């Protein structure tokens, strides 16, 4: 008999949501059969069986969130194997007095029983902690969380079966008060704070992508950012794109401005390897490979599929790859290796008409490029005012990794390449 454990499906994954069981209890399974679909922090993955046997028991219910390494099902040799699994997994917490005195049992047989101490159902023993299932909370913990405006679902329970108890809420309150000194003054005021919540409001549960995005970007706030903005004369770039697309034999892989940017950044990073670096706490990592992430907005949150070795790929290959990655990102079918390992990120909001913005660094990378829309603007050319097309690009830099001059040299080179874009192609 083998426990099927929640696998680690990505670097940042700490728990997975059991989306759907594709096998049912009692089904025969063979090594390689898909047992279930699991939503990680980034993608939906299929979980395959590692053993032949019978799926004797499903532990994690559909929709439940399970930490990696915790059992989610049991695969047994046969039907008989099931019983041992169930018996060992269900802690016997009731003394005989509660389980009910069998009318046929004699007094002598049970006379030596200890005094009755009833343990309520649901009061699992400590070793059963972090079992999947409904959120377990003590009434006091709920009341306290409510009182302090905390979402109890976000608090890790350490009581029996993972129950959130007062100590857990107290810890969450203490942790919050360390970061926000505000509530003390609010509490001192007798007037209740204005509460914007109404009956009509909807509570939207966090998707795991939303949750991880929030966590990563909050981490990023710890990095001291600085920003460099440059205006690019976009006419040569747009002209090159039109020319390329007109002459492409396969219209399916039309080249976008973003694709050209991916390649341009990769080439510029080749010349400025300091920018292709990461902050690693007590040292820096200068990456040998140049992997460019492209931020893709989804309803569920943000995901950054990565074009690997973009400095060694032709622009047409980058276009095909980036297009496929974006499509899979929207379908939620990216595999972990497709959205990890980036060394530099591009976020392009030009298609939304955004003129200029600053992006938040995707940690642990050192920099991110925010790209605005290409628009017609008055420009001064050879001392005369003319109509031109410009595009603003803004580099956000982690100052722990890079200084202003280094980043400026990179940006200058990048801008030069975008304005004389044939270099992108060679």
């Amino acid at each position, binding site marked *: 008999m083998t426990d099927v454990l929640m696998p680690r499906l990505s670097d940042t994954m700490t728990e997975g949501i059991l989306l759907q069981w594709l096998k049912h209890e009692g089904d025969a399974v063979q090594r390689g059969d898909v047992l279930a679909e699991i939503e990680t922090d980034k993608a939906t993955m299929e979980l395959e069986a590692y053993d032949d046997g019978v799926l004797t028991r499903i532990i994690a219910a559909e929709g439940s969130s399970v930490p990696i390494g915790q059992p989610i099902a049991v695969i047994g040799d046969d039907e008989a194997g099931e019983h041992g699994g169930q018996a060992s997994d269900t802690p016997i917490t009731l003394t005989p007095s509660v389980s009910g005195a069998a009318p046929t049992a004699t007094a002598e047989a049970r006379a030596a029983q200890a005094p009755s101490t009833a343990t309520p159902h649901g009061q699992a023993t400590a070793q059963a902690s972090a079992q999947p299932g409904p959120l377990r909370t*003590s*009434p*006091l913990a709920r009341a306290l969380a409510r009182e302090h405006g905390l979402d109890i679902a976000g608090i890790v329970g350490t009581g029996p079966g993972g129950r959130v108890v007062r100590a857990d809420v107290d810890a969450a309150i203490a942790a919050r008060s360390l970061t926000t000194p505000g509530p003390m003054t609010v509490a001192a005021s007798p007037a209740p704070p204005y509460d914007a919540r109404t009956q009509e409001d909807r509570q939207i549960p966090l998707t795991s992508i939303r949750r991880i995005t929030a966590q990563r970007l909050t981490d990023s706030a710890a990095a001291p950012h600085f920003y460099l903005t440059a205006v690019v004369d976009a006419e040569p770039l747009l002209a090159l794109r039109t020319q390329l697309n007109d002459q492409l034999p396969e219209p399916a892989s039309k080249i976008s401005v973003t694709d050209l940017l991916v390649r341009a950044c990769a080439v510029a990073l080749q010349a400025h390897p300091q920018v292709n670096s990461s902050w690693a706490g007590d040292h820096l990592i200068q990456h040998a490979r140049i992997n460019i992430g492209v931020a893709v907005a989804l309803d569920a949150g943000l995901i950054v599929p990565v074009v690997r070795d973009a400095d060694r790929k032709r622009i047409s290959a980058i276009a095909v790859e980036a297009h496929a990655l974006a499509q899979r990102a929207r379908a939620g079918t990216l595999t972990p290796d497709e959205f990890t390992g980036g060394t530099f990120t591009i976020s392009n909001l030009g298609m939304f008409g955004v003129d200029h913005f600053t992006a938040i660094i995707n940690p642990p990378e050192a920099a991110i490029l925010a790209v605005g829309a290409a628009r017609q603007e008055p420009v001064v050319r050879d001392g005369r005012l003319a109509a031109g097309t410009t595009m603003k690009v803004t580099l956000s830099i982690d100052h722990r990794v890079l200084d202003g001059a280094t980043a400026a040299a990179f940006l200058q080179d990048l801008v030069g390449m975008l304005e004389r874009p044939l270099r992108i192609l060679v």
Partner: protein
Amino acid sequence: MTVTSYRQALHDALRAELLRDESVLLLGEEIGVFEGSYKITAGLLTEFGPNRVRDTPICEEGFVGAAIGAAMLGMRPVVEIMTINFSLLAIDQIVNHAAKMHAMFGGQVSVPLVIRTPGGGGQQLAATHSQNLEVWYAHVPGMKVVAPATPSDAKALLTAAIRDDDPVLFLENLALYNTKGDVPDGEQVGQIGTAAIVKAGSDLTVISYSRCTVIAMEVANQLQHDGVSVEVVDLRSLRPLDRETICASVRKTSRAVVLEDDWLTYGVGAEIAATIQEGAFDYLDAPVRRVAAAEIPLPYAKPLELAALPAAADLSKVIGEILDATRFNR
């Protein structure tokens, strides 16, 4: 203030009421010439004579019925039933007559009757003489059920019971008769229906009554040394039940255990647990736990009897489980 035994405190209350009120009379098996099976009535026949202290035939239904009649006609009879187990012979008189008269006669009569009777096990009196049937009577509207744990409460509550116009089942306990404690001198009239916080604490509430309050105090004092502040609520009265004191305590401590001498199922603990979840639900950090007797007819053999009755170790274990479940730092 005098250090007095529980037995003596009961005796003093009876004697004081016999002296104070001529309508008070005592009835029961062997309470006169033999001075009572537990000597509570020692000397009272000699002092007050056979009209006030009356030996009865061995017929619980008969003398309880006679006492109910006397009470309806203005007397204040105090009946001693040798153990609560024998009250079963009079249960129709108690439940269907004493408890019902006032309501069924539209308030025209009252039944100011006291039934004194010891309950509980631990004396090797075997299954039929060791029961805790007080909860049967506490279930019945029209009855009052009082269960003092200390000599002081024994005196004050027996006095109150005698002066009360409703039938009162006054629960004593063989294991308590020789316990001693401070008892205020002079007349003390307790208030039926109020629980006492016999030890204040902040971490966990133990709710108990009668003999088990003594055990609860022992455990609470032990745990005090381990840095656990246990509050002990002595119910003193099972009906009326002082729900407010129970809930106020649990609202303070957020953890609760009921320690009871009766069987677990349908016991006093079930009522207390329900009371707490109704009155202090949002304050609970762990489920209310119950520690009660094993659900078996109590064995005669001493080791088995001891094993079946709730003891300090059982209470300590459950308290430890609750503290662990709520991550209490000891």
